[in-house]
Protein backbone atom coordinates (compact mmCIF):
# COMPACT_ATOMS: atom_id res chain seq x y z
CA UNK A 1 0.00 0.00 0.00
CA UNK A 2 1.29 3.46 -0.87
CA UNK A 3 1.49 6.37 1.57
CA UNK A 4 -1.17 8.20 -0.49
CA UNK A 5 -3.57 5.28 -0.21
CA UNK A 6 -2.85 5.03 3.51
CA UNK A 7 -3.67 8.73 3.97
CA UNK A 8 -6.87 8.29 1.94
CA UNK A 9 -8.06 5.41 4.15
CA UNK A 10 -7.15 7.32 7.29
CA UNK A 11 -9.16 10.34 6.11
CA UNK A 12 -12.11 8.06 5.39
CA UNK A 13 -11.96 6.48 8.84
CA UNK A 14 -11.73 9.88 10.51
CA UNK A 15 -14.61 11.25 8.39
CA UNK A 16 -12.42 13.85 6.73
CA UNK A 17 -13.27 13.17 3.05
CA UNK A 18 -15.35 15.62 1.02
CA UNK A 19 -18.74 14.41 -0.24
CA UNK A 20 -17.31 13.74 -3.71
CA UNK A 21 -14.22 11.93 -2.40
CA UNK A 22 -16.41 9.90 -0.06
CA UNK A 23 -18.70 8.71 -2.89
CA UNK A 24 -15.66 7.78 -5.00
CA UNK A 25 -14.18 5.90 -2.02
CA UNK A 26 -17.38 3.90 -1.44
CA UNK A 27 -17.55 3.00 -5.12
CA UNK A 28 -14.01 1.63 -5.02
CA UNK A 29 -14.78 -0.20 -1.79
CA UNK A 30 -17.64 -1.97 -3.49
CA UNK A 31 -15.76 -2.93 -6.64
CA UNK A 32 -12.23 -3.65 -5.45
CA UNK A 33 -12.09 -6.66 -3.05
CA UNK A 34 -8.41 -6.15 -2.22
CA UNK A 35 -9.05 -2.52 -1.30
CA UNK A 36 -12.08 -3.61 0.75
CA UNK A 37 -9.88 -6.03 2.68
CA UNK A 38 -7.28 -3.31 3.40
CA UNK A 39 -9.91 -0.86 4.63
CA UNK A 40 -11.54 -3.49 6.86
CA UNK A 41 -8.23 -4.34 8.51
CA UNK A 42 -7.31 -0.66 8.96
CA UNK A 43 -10.74 0.03 10.42
CA UNK A 44 -10.46 -2.86 12.87
CA UNK A 45 -6.96 -1.82 13.94
CA UNK A 46 -8.10 1.75 14.35
CA UNK A 47 -10.98 0.74 16.67
CA UNK A 48 -9.53 -2.20 18.58
CA UNK A 49 -6.27 -0.43 19.42
CA UNK A 50 -7.99 2.79 20.49
CA UNK A 51 -8.61 2.52 24.25
CA UNK A 52 -11.88 4.42 23.90
CA UNK A 53 -13.29 2.55 20.95
CA UNK A 54 -14.35 -0.97 19.95
CA UNK A 55 -15.08 -2.74 16.67
CA UNK A 56 -18.37 -4.62 16.67
CA UNK A 57 -18.45 -7.37 14.06
CA UNK A 58 -21.53 -7.36 11.90
CA UNK A 59 -21.31 -10.50 9.77
CA UNK A 60 -23.97 -12.74 11.24
CA UNK A 61 -23.53 -16.22 9.71
CA UNK A 62 -19.97 -17.45 9.52
CA UNK A 63 -19.44 -21.04 10.60
CA UNK A 64 -17.53 -20.04 13.73
CA UNK A 65 -20.35 -17.85 15.05
CA UNK A 66 -22.78 -20.71 14.47
CA UNK A 67 -20.51 -23.14 16.32
CA UNK A 68 -20.40 -20.79 19.33
CA UNK A 69 -24.15 -20.25 19.18
CA UNK A 70 -24.73 -24.00 19.33
CA UNK A 71 -22.62 -24.24 22.48
CA UNK A 72 -24.46 -21.26 23.99
CA UNK A 73 -27.79 -22.97 23.32
CA UNK A 74 -26.64 -26.23 24.98
CA UNK A 75 -28.13 -27.48 28.26
CA UNK A 76 -24.81 -27.00 30.06
CA UNK A 77 -24.60 -23.30 29.21
CA UNK A 78 -28.28 -22.80 29.98
CA UNK A 79 -27.55 -24.28 33.39
CA UNK A 80 -24.50 -22.03 33.79
CA UNK A 81 -26.63 -18.97 32.97
CA UNK A 82 -29.04 -19.97 35.77
CA UNK A 83 -26.13 -20.53 38.20
CA UNK A 84 -24.66 -17.11 37.39
CA UNK A 85 -28.04 -15.46 37.84
CA UNK A 86 -28.50 -17.11 41.25
CA UNK A 87 -25.01 -16.28 42.47
CA UNK A 88 -25.40 -12.71 41.28
CA UNK A 89 -28.71 -12.32 43.15
CA UNK A 90 -27.16 -13.85 46.27
CA UNK A 91 -24.12 -11.58 46.10
CA UNK A 92 -26.17 -8.44 45.59
CA UNK A 93 -28.43 -9.38 48.51
CA UNK A 94 -25.42 -10.07 50.72
CA UNK A 95 -23.92 -6.69 49.86
CA UNK A 96 -27.14 -4.85 50.68
CA UNK A 97 -27.53 -6.70 53.96
CA UNK A 98 -23.93 -5.98 54.81
CA UNK A 99 -24.50 -2.29 54.10
CA UNK A 100 -27.64 -2.10 56.23
CA UNK A 101 -26.42 -4.15 59.18
CA UNK A 102 -22.89 -2.94 59.23
CA UNK A 103 -23.38 0.15 61.45
CA UNK A 104 -25.16 -1.94 64.10
CA UNK A 105 -22.21 -4.23 64.57
CA UNK A 106 -19.39 -1.84 63.97
CA UNK A 107 -16.85 -1.68 66.71
CA UNK A 108 -16.18 1.50 68.67
CA UNK A 109 -12.81 1.79 67.03
CA UNK A 110 -14.34 1.70 63.60
CA UNK A 111 -16.90 4.35 64.55
CA UNK A 112 -14.09 6.52 65.84
CA UNK A 113 -12.34 6.08 62.54
CA UNK A 114 -15.42 7.18 60.61
CA UNK A 115 -15.83 10.21 62.86
CA UNK A 116 -12.26 11.24 62.20
CA UNK A 117 -12.72 10.72 58.49
CA UNK A 118 -15.86 12.85 58.66
CA UNK A 119 -13.94 15.54 60.53
CA UNK A 120 -11.36 15.79 57.82
CA UNK A 121 -14.22 16.16 55.32
CA UNK A 122 -13.48 13.00 53.43
CA UNK A 123 -16.55 11.36 51.90
CA UNK A 124 -17.35 7.85 53.10
CA UNK A 125 -17.05 4.93 50.72
CA UNK A 126 -20.83 4.58 50.67
CA UNK A 127 -21.39 8.23 49.73
CA UNK A 128 -18.74 8.02 47.05
CA UNK A 129 -20.28 4.88 45.63
CA UNK A 130 -23.78 6.33 45.70
CA UNK A 131 -22.53 9.51 44.05
CA UNK A 132 -20.93 7.47 41.23
CA UNK A 133 -24.12 5.49 40.83
CA UNK A 134 -26.40 8.48 40.62
CA UNK A 135 -24.38 11.14 38.79
CA UNK A 136 -25.05 9.55 35.35
CA UNK A 137 -23.20 12.08 33.18
CA UNK A 138 -24.20 10.33 29.97
CA UNK A 139 -27.83 11.38 30.49
CA UNK A 140 -27.07 15.10 30.32
CA UNK A 141 -28.70 17.11 27.54
CA UNK A 142 -26.37 18.05 24.71
CA UNK A 143 -25.14 21.63 24.62
CA UNK A 144 -24.88 21.55 20.87
CA UNK A 145 -28.46 20.51 20.22
CA UNK A 146 -29.90 23.03 22.62
CA UNK A 147 -27.88 25.95 21.36
CA UNK A 148 -29.85 28.25 19.09
CA UNK A 149 -26.73 29.38 17.28
CA UNK A 150 -23.67 27.32 16.52
CA UNK A 151 -21.28 28.22 19.29
CA UNK A 152 -17.97 26.51 18.58
CA UNK A 153 -16.79 27.33 22.11
CA UNK A 154 -19.56 25.22 23.57
CA UNK A 155 -18.93 22.35 21.16
CA UNK A 156 -15.31 22.36 22.31
CA UNK A 157 -16.36 22.60 25.97
CA UNK A 158 -18.68 19.63 25.65
CA UNK A 159 -15.87 17.58 24.08
CA UNK A 160 -13.55 18.52 26.95
CA UNK A 161 -16.27 17.69 29.48
CA UNK A 162 -16.88 14.28 27.90
CA UNK A 163 -13.13 13.64 27.98
CA UNK A 164 -13.30 14.44 31.73
CA UNK A 165 -11.07 17.47 31.26
CA UNK A 166 -13.26 19.48 33.64
CA UNK A 167 -10.88 22.33 34.38
CA UNK A 168 -10.50 23.37 30.74
CA UNK A 169 -14.21 22.82 30.09
CA UNK A 170 -15.03 24.98 33.12
CA UNK A 171 -12.94 27.84 31.74
CA UNK A 172 -15.14 27.92 28.61
CA UNK A 173 -18.41 27.49 30.53
CA UNK A 174 -17.51 30.47 32.70
CA UNK A 175 -16.88 32.59 29.58
CA UNK A 176 -20.28 31.64 28.16
CA UNK A 177 -22.33 31.89 31.33
CA UNK A 178 -24.24 35.06 30.39
CA UNK A 179 -25.93 33.22 27.55
CA UNK A 180 -29.61 32.42 27.93
CA UNK A 181 -28.89 28.74 28.28
CA UNK A 182 -29.60 26.81 31.46
CA UNK A 183 -27.65 23.81 30.20
CA UNK A 184 -24.42 25.83 30.32
CA UNK A 185 -25.19 26.57 33.96
CA UNK A 186 -25.77 22.88 34.60
CA UNK A 187 -22.51 21.82 32.93
CA UNK A 188 -20.63 24.58 34.77
CA UNK A 189 -21.96 23.37 38.13
CA UNK A 190 -21.17 19.72 37.39
CA UNK A 191 -17.62 20.61 36.25
CA UNK A 192 -17.10 22.51 39.53
CA UNK A 193 -18.53 19.59 41.47
CA UNK A 194 -16.26 17.08 39.69
CA UNK A 195 -13.28 19.32 40.54
CA UNK A 196 -14.36 19.42 44.23
CA UNK A 197 -15.00 23.18 44.04
CA UNK A 198 -17.93 22.62 46.37
CA UNK A 199 -18.87 26.19 47.29
CA UNK A 200 -18.74 27.35 43.68
CA UNK A 201 -20.83 24.39 42.54
CA UNK A 202 -23.37 25.10 45.33
CA UNK A 203 -23.70 28.71 44.13
CA UNK A 204 -24.13 27.62 40.50
CA UNK A 205 -26.83 25.06 41.29
CA UNK A 206 -28.60 27.57 43.58
CA UNK A 207 -28.55 30.09 40.72
CA UNK A 208 -30.10 27.42 38.51
CA UNK A 209 -32.87 26.50 40.98
CA UNK A 210 -33.66 30.19 41.62
CA UNK A 211 -33.88 30.97 37.89
CA UNK A 212 -36.94 31.05 35.60
CA UNK A 213 -35.43 28.42 33.30
CA UNK A 214 -37.51 25.37 32.52
CA UNK A 215 -34.63 23.29 33.93
CA UNK A 216 -34.59 25.22 37.21
CA UNK A 217 -35.74 22.26 39.30
CA UNK A 218 -32.70 20.24 38.21
CA UNK A 219 -30.74 22.53 40.52
CA UNK A 220 -32.18 20.70 43.56
CA UNK A 221 -31.15 17.26 42.26
CA UNK A 222 -27.59 18.31 41.53
CA UNK A 223 -27.30 20.11 44.87
CA UNK A 224 -28.33 16.84 46.50
CA UNK A 225 -25.60 15.00 44.58
CA UNK A 226 -23.09 17.70 45.46
CA UNK A 227 -23.83 17.25 49.16
CA UNK A 228 -23.63 13.50 48.71
CA UNK A 229 -20.17 13.92 47.21
CA UNK A 230 -19.01 15.96 50.19
CA UNK A 231 -20.76 13.56 52.54
CA UNK A 232 -23.19 16.11 54.03
CA UNK A 233 -25.93 13.53 54.41
CA UNK A 234 -28.29 15.78 56.41
CA UNK A 235 -28.40 18.33 53.59
CA UNK A 236 -28.76 15.54 51.02
CA UNK A 237 -31.86 14.26 52.81
CA UNK A 238 -33.43 17.73 53.14
CA UNK A 239 -32.97 18.38 49.43
CA UNK A 240 -34.26 14.93 48.46
CA UNK A 241 -37.39 15.47 50.57
CA UNK A 242 -37.94 18.81 48.78
CA UNK A 243 -37.64 17.01 45.43
CA UNK A 244 -40.02 14.17 46.30
CA UNK A 245 -42.68 16.33 47.97
CA UNK A 246 -42.75 18.80 45.04
CA UNK A 247 -42.37 16.09 42.37
CA UNK A 248 -39.35 17.90 40.99
CA UNK A 249 -36.92 16.50 38.38
CA UNK A 250 -35.81 12.93 39.24
CA UNK A 251 -38.27 12.55 42.13
CA UNK A 252 -38.29 8.75 41.66
CA UNK A 253 -34.53 8.57 41.86
CA UNK A 254 -34.64 10.89 44.89
CA UNK A 255 -36.98 8.45 46.64
CA UNK A 256 -34.71 5.54 45.76
CA UNK A 257 -31.64 7.41 47.07
CA UNK A 258 -33.45 8.31 50.29
CA UNK A 259 -34.10 4.61 50.89
CA UNK A 260 -30.43 3.81 50.28
CA UNK A 261 -29.41 6.46 52.83
CA UNK A 262 -31.62 5.12 55.64
Amino acid at each position, binding site marked *: *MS*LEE*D*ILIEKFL*RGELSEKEHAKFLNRLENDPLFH*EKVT*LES*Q*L*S*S*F*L*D*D*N*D*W*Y*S*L*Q*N*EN*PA*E*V*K*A*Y*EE*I*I*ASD*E*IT*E*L*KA*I*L*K*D*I*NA*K*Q*QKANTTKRINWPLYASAALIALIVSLYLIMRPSVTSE*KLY*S*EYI*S*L*SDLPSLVVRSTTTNTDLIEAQKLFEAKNYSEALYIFRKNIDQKNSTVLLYKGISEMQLDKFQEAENTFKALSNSDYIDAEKGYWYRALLNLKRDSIKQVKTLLHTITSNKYYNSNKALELLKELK
Partner: protein
Amino acid sequence: MSDNQYFLNALANNDSKEIEKLYENNFHKVKKFILQNNGQSIDAEDIFQKALLQITVRYKKEPFTIKTNFDAYLFTVCKNLWRKQLNKSKKWVTTDKDLTHNHEDQDIALSILEQKRWELFKETLELITGNCKIILRMFFNKKPYSEIVEVMNYNSETVARQRVFKCKAKLIELIKKDKRFNALKEL
Protein backbone atom coordinates in the same frame (compact mmCIF):
# COMPACT_ATOMS: atom_id res chain seq x y z
CA MET B 1 -3.06 -27.81 37.65
CA SER B 2 -2.48 -24.03 37.49
CA ASP B 3 -4.96 -21.60 39.03
CA ASN B 4 -5.93 -20.44 35.54
CA GLN B 5 -6.73 -23.98 34.45
CA TYR B 6 -8.53 -24.62 37.72
CA PHE B 7 -10.97 -21.73 37.24
CA LEU B 8 -11.50 -22.50 33.55
CA ASN B 9 -12.43 -26.05 34.51
CA ALA B 10 -14.67 -24.83 37.32
CA LEU B 11 -16.60 -22.75 34.77
CA ALA B 12 -16.72 -25.55 32.21
CA ASN B 13 -18.06 -27.93 34.89
CA ASN B 14 -20.67 -25.50 36.27
CA ASP B 15 -19.00 -25.69 39.69
CA SER B 16 -21.17 -23.19 41.56
CA LYS B 17 -19.01 -23.14 44.70
CA GLU B 18 -15.90 -22.09 42.78
CA ILE B 19 -17.85 -19.68 40.57
CA GLU B 20 -19.11 -18.00 43.74
CA LYS B 21 -15.46 -17.52 44.78
CA LEU B 22 -14.80 -15.86 41.43
CA TYR B 23 -17.62 -13.46 42.16
CA GLU B 24 -16.33 -12.67 45.63
CA ASN B 25 -12.80 -12.03 44.39
CA ASN B 26 -13.52 -10.09 41.22
CA PHE B 27 -16.95 -8.49 41.02
CA HIS B 28 -16.18 -5.49 43.21
CA LYS B 29 -13.25 -4.40 41.02
CA VAL B 30 -15.34 -4.70 37.84
CA LYS B 31 -18.22 -2.78 39.41
CA LYS B 32 -15.87 0.01 40.48
CA PHE B 33 -14.48 0.28 36.94
CA ILE B 34 -17.95 0.43 35.38
CA LEU B 35 -19.26 2.99 37.88
CA GLN B 36 -16.25 5.16 37.10
CA ASN B 37 -16.96 4.87 33.38
CA ASN B 38 -20.54 6.06 33.05
CA GLY B 39 -22.20 2.80 34.07
CA GLN B 40 -24.56 1.67 36.81
CA SER B 41 -24.50 -1.31 39.20
CA ILE B 42 -26.88 -3.23 36.97
CA ASP B 43 -24.50 -2.81 34.02
CA ALA B 44 -21.68 -4.26 36.10
CA GLU B 45 -23.80 -7.30 37.00
CA ASP B 46 -24.70 -7.85 33.35
CA ILE B 47 -21.14 -7.43 32.05
CA PHE B 48 -19.68 -9.71 34.72
CA GLN B 49 -22.08 -12.54 33.85
CA LYS B 50 -21.49 -12.08 30.11
CA ALA B 51 -17.72 -12.19 30.62
CA LEU B 52 -17.91 -15.50 32.50
CA LEU B 53 -20.19 -16.91 29.80
CA GLN B 54 -17.87 -15.70 27.07
CA ILE B 55 -14.82 -17.34 28.67
CA THR B 56 -16.68 -20.63 29.26
CA VAL B 57 -18.12 -20.91 25.75
CA ARG B 58 -14.76 -20.14 24.18
CA TYR B 59 -13.01 -22.67 26.42
CA LYS B 60 -15.56 -25.36 25.60
CA LYS B 61 -15.04 -24.92 21.85
CA GLU B 62 -11.26 -24.53 21.86
CA PRO B 63 -9.51 -24.98 25.23
CA PHE B 64 -7.08 -22.05 25.50
CA THR B 65 -4.46 -20.99 27.99
CA ILE B 66 -4.47 -17.68 29.81
CA LYS B 67 -1.12 -15.94 29.62
CA THR B 68 -1.62 -13.63 32.61
CA ASN B 69 -3.53 -14.72 35.72
CA PHE B 70 -7.22 -15.59 35.67
CA ASP B 71 -8.38 -12.51 37.63
CA ALA B 72 -6.50 -10.13 35.32
CA TYR B 73 -7.84 -11.88 32.25
CA LEU B 74 -11.42 -11.77 33.55
CA PHE B 75 -11.05 -8.05 34.27
CA THR B 76 -9.75 -7.42 30.72
CA VAL B 77 -12.69 -9.31 29.21
CA CYS B 78 -15.10 -7.23 31.33
CA LYS B 79 -13.36 -4.00 30.29
CA ASN B 80 -13.60 -4.95 26.62
CA LEU B 81 -17.27 -5.89 26.92
CA TRP B 82 -17.93 -2.52 28.54
CA ARG B 83 -16.02 -0.74 25.73
CA LYS B 84 -18.21 -2.64 23.26
CA GLN B 85 -21.35 -1.65 25.15
CA LEU B 86 -20.41 2.03 25.36
CA ASN B 87 -19.57 2.20 21.68
CA LYS B 88 -22.71 0.28 20.78
CA SER B 89 -24.92 2.86 22.48
CA LYS B 90 -23.02 5.66 20.72
CA LYS B 91 -23.54 4.03 17.33
CA TRP B 92 -27.06 2.78 18.09
CA VAL B 93 -28.83 5.10 15.65
CA THR B 94 -26.86 3.87 12.66
CA THR B 95 -27.06 0.16 13.54
CA ASP B 96 -29.67 -1.83 11.68
CA LYS B 97 -29.10 -5.25 13.18
CA ASP B 98 -31.95 -7.69 13.58
CA LEU B 99 -32.71 -7.56 17.28
CA THR B 100 -35.27 -10.30 17.40
CA HIS B 101 -33.63 -13.66 16.66
CA ASN B 102 -31.40 -14.99 19.42
CA HIS B 103 -29.75 -11.61 19.66
CA GLU B 104 -28.16 -12.20 23.04
CA ASP B 105 -26.58 -15.54 22.04
CA GLN B 106 -25.28 -14.05 18.83
CA ASP B 107 -23.89 -11.11 20.75
CA ILE B 108 -21.92 -13.44 23.03
CA ALA B 109 -20.66 -15.42 20.00
CA LEU B 110 -19.52 -12.25 18.22
CA SER B 111 -17.94 -10.92 21.40
CA ILE B 112 -15.72 -14.05 21.52
CA LEU B 113 -14.48 -13.39 17.97
CA GLU B 114 -13.91 -9.73 18.84
CA GLN B 115 -11.99 -10.64 21.99
CA LYS B 116 -9.78 -13.04 19.98
CA ARG B 117 -9.09 -10.41 17.37
CA TRP B 118 -8.33 -7.80 20.03
CA GLU B 119 -5.86 -10.25 21.63
CA LEU B 120 -4.13 -10.83 18.27
CA PHE B 121 -3.78 -7.10 17.59
CA LYS B 122 -2.73 -6.20 21.13
CA GLU B 123 -0.18 -9.03 21.41
CA THR B 124 1.29 -8.17 18.01
CA LEU B 125 1.59 -4.51 18.97
CA GLU B 126 3.59 -5.64 22.01
CA LEU B 127 6.04 -7.42 19.67
CA ILE B 128 6.89 -4.10 18.01
CA THR B 129 9.91 -2.54 19.63
CA GLY B 130 11.27 0.93 20.36
CA ASN B 131 9.81 4.14 18.98
CA CYS B 132 7.44 2.34 16.63
CA LYS B 133 5.37 1.07 19.56
CA ILE B 134 5.13 4.58 21.08
CA ILE B 135 4.17 6.11 17.71
CA LEU B 136 1.52 3.48 17.00
CA ARG B 137 -0.02 3.78 20.46
CA MET B 138 -0.35 7.54 19.97
CA PHE B 139 -1.66 7.13 16.44
CA PHE B 140 -4.33 4.56 17.34
CA ASN B 141 -5.44 6.63 20.32
CA LYS B 142 -6.11 9.43 17.80
CA LYS B 143 -3.41 11.82 18.97
CA PRO B 144 -2.87 14.56 16.39
CA TYR B 145 0.28 14.42 14.26
CA SER B 146 1.41 17.69 15.86
CA GLU B 147 1.59 15.85 19.20
CA ILE B 148 3.54 12.95 17.67
CA VAL B 149 5.99 15.52 16.22
CA GLU B 150 6.42 17.11 19.64
CA VAL B 151 6.79 13.90 21.65
CA MET B 152 9.12 12.20 19.14
CA ASN B 153 11.03 15.37 18.37
CA TYR B 154 10.50 15.12 14.60
CA ASN B 155 11.07 17.99 12.16
CA SER B 156 7.62 18.03 10.61
CA GLU B 157 4.23 16.33 10.38
CA THR B 158 5.31 14.84 7.04
CA VAL B 159 8.07 12.94 8.84
CA ALA B 160 5.58 11.81 11.50
CA ARG B 161 3.17 10.55 8.80
CA GLN B 162 5.95 8.59 7.11
CA ARG B 163 6.98 7.02 10.42
CA VAL B 164 3.38 6.05 11.23
CA PHE B 165 3.03 4.55 7.74
CA LYS B 166 6.18 2.44 8.12
CA CYS B 167 5.38 1.29 11.66
CA LYS B 168 1.82 0.40 10.71
CA ALA B 169 3.08 -1.60 7.72
CA LYS B 170 5.37 -3.52 10.10
CA LEU B 171 2.46 -4.21 12.46
CA ILE B 172 0.22 -5.41 9.61
CA GLU B 173 3.00 -7.65 8.28
CA LEU B 174 3.37 -9.32 11.70
CA ILE B 175 -0.40 -9.71 12.08
CA LYS B 176 -0.69 -11.34 8.66
CA LYS B 177 2.11 -13.78 9.52
CA ASP B 178 0.21 -14.96 12.61
CA LYS B 179 -1.74 -18.16 11.97
CA ARG B 180 -4.69 -16.74 13.91
CA PHE B 181 -5.13 -14.09 11.22
CA ASN B 182 -6.39 -16.45 8.51
CA ALA B 183 -9.39 -17.43 10.58
CA LEU B 184 -10.27 -13.76 11.02
CA LYS B 185 -9.88 -12.71 7.41
CA GLU B 186 -13.24 -14.03 6.32
CA LEU B 187 -15.23 -11.82 8.65
